[in-house]
């Protein structure tokens, strides 16, 4: 019988963070980059709750609420910027940006 230990949850969270980080590097669509960022933050939430459970300490659970709020706010700003840019340039691909260069 396999029991699920805190280490398994940590492994899951590290995987989520790793996938998010990789997605941020590999993806060329800004929308998907924002989703990858969300994935990273959610992976961090899983790690935080695991640590909180192992430590019998509720502080970690409190930080999770702050992280969720911040993630929502960040995506709201990000989408607003993206919509404004899309109206100007008709693209959401990072390859098509490049007005800023020397």
């Amino acid at each position, binding site marked *: 019988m396999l029991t699920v230990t805190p280490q398994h949850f940590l492994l899951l969270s590290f995987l989520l963070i790793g996938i998010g980080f990789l997605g941020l590097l590999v993806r060329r669509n800004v929308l998907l980059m924002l989703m990858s960022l969300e994935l990273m933050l959610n992976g961090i939430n899983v790690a935080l709750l695991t640590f909180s459970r192992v430590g019998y300490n509720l502080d*970690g659970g409190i930080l999770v609420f*702050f992280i969720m709020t911040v993630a929502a706010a*960040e995506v709201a700003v990000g989408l607003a910027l993206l919509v404004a840019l899309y109206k100007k340039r008709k693209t959401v691909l990072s390859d098509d940006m490049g007005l800023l260069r020397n």
Partner: protein
Amino acid sequence: MEAYLRFANDNLWGELWPELSLCLGALIVIGINLFSKSSNFHDRSGNFAILFQFLLLLIHLFDYLLLRHTFDRHSFSGMIKHGMHEDIMRSFFLLSSLIVSILAQSFLRVRKLRIGEFHHLTMVATAGLMILCQTQNFILFFVALETVALCFYPLVAYNRECAKGLEAGIKYLIFGALSSALLLFGIVLLYGVGANPEAWGAITPTVGQVDGFSFSALYHLLSENPNHLLLKAGVVLIISGIAFKIGAAPFQIWVPDVYHGAPMPVTAFLAVSSKAAGFFVLLNLVNGPFAGMSDFLLPLLGFVATFTIFFGNLAACSQKNLKRMLGLSGVAHAGYLMVAVMASMILPGSSDRAVWILFFYLFTYLLASFAVFGIMGIANVSDDAEHEFSDYEDLAKKKPWAAFSLVVGIGSLAGIPPLAGFIGKLLLFSVAFETKLYFSLTAMVIGVVISIYYYFGWLREICFHPRPVFEDDEPSHDSWLGSENSGLIKTVILSLVVASIVLGIWQGSIGDAF
């Protein structure tokens, strides 16, 4: 009831009055903007914001210098520290946000952008920066950091009609959010080990309570377990998150692009306030919770500082766009300041000479940067993002006061003798020598010499007429003919310039370090 009263008495809300009134002022500004009927770009709310911040700065200085000297107190159950350094940084941020508001007022009016929201965001960001510098707890640290970041994203993309600004905003958002995520991951690792050290193979510290977020508890934990893998990873992740914010290599990729696309007052705000906050936080962390790991951190920071100095200076040499050049020279300045942080790690105590030198350097950087960015903001170039060297050709004849302010500002950034920037660099060199950081000292000297090259290229354009003029030349666009001449901006910039010169000759008690 009794049990809660103990916590309530510990919450010194009165000590946070500058932040609270700044937030209140920000709400009033947005309220005035909301309920006034006239057109988009009328500036009553902006005038109110400037007056409000000016009064706040005056009262804060009065309060801090004359009324209260009870420093080094903790409140909110140890979450916030009220100390002398923290109060200096609060004055620094108030001053910088006041100058940004003044510079922005006419900038926004000329470009017909909305005024109230800009001041609102600036004031909220400043309140966040002030809290960020006083916090002693990673939860509050994260929340304050994100408050600042979320105000900066819309500020960078403030001109929604300009695709460059929007692109800069999105780049800043992606990199800023990534750095926050890395920093948060580091915080989580420290918290995880701190909440239950035995479960992760660390030694429980004998002194202090078990708390994974408070700086003092983490100090004990880290000094007992300097070689624990999770803790080391956490510390490195937190440092790299902060390195993103201050634009230290290898996390400096966003700096030139964001500086390039952002409106001029926001570029100045980013260059001064955001960077100063990053450095103060870094200083707090390496002298506070991470002090037990200094053997591990010193070589790391030394590598980062040297890399930053060389990268910033060499990359700035090849830039044709002035905003990008200033951004990369700001990266180089971050490298110099990093050396001061390393020196303060070596010197004992958390209020040593290196800390005061860092403060002095930050203030001289504020004076010089705002003078330079202020003059660039009043130039009437067709595209705010594209300031080229040729726009400044022969400025000394066209607008002598602007040319003089620019020359003093650039000279102070470069570190030319009678100006404040020179004294700042000299103090940095002396403290680096004293703490035997010879390698970083060499890098700094080489960096300063390289920086003379690109700063003086600009000075040459301002003071002389380097290109020959032919009879049949197309008359080029003169950026200084229609440029605005607001009396307030002129006064502010000239007083910054005077302060730069005076601080170069007389430094008060800081000068005793010689």
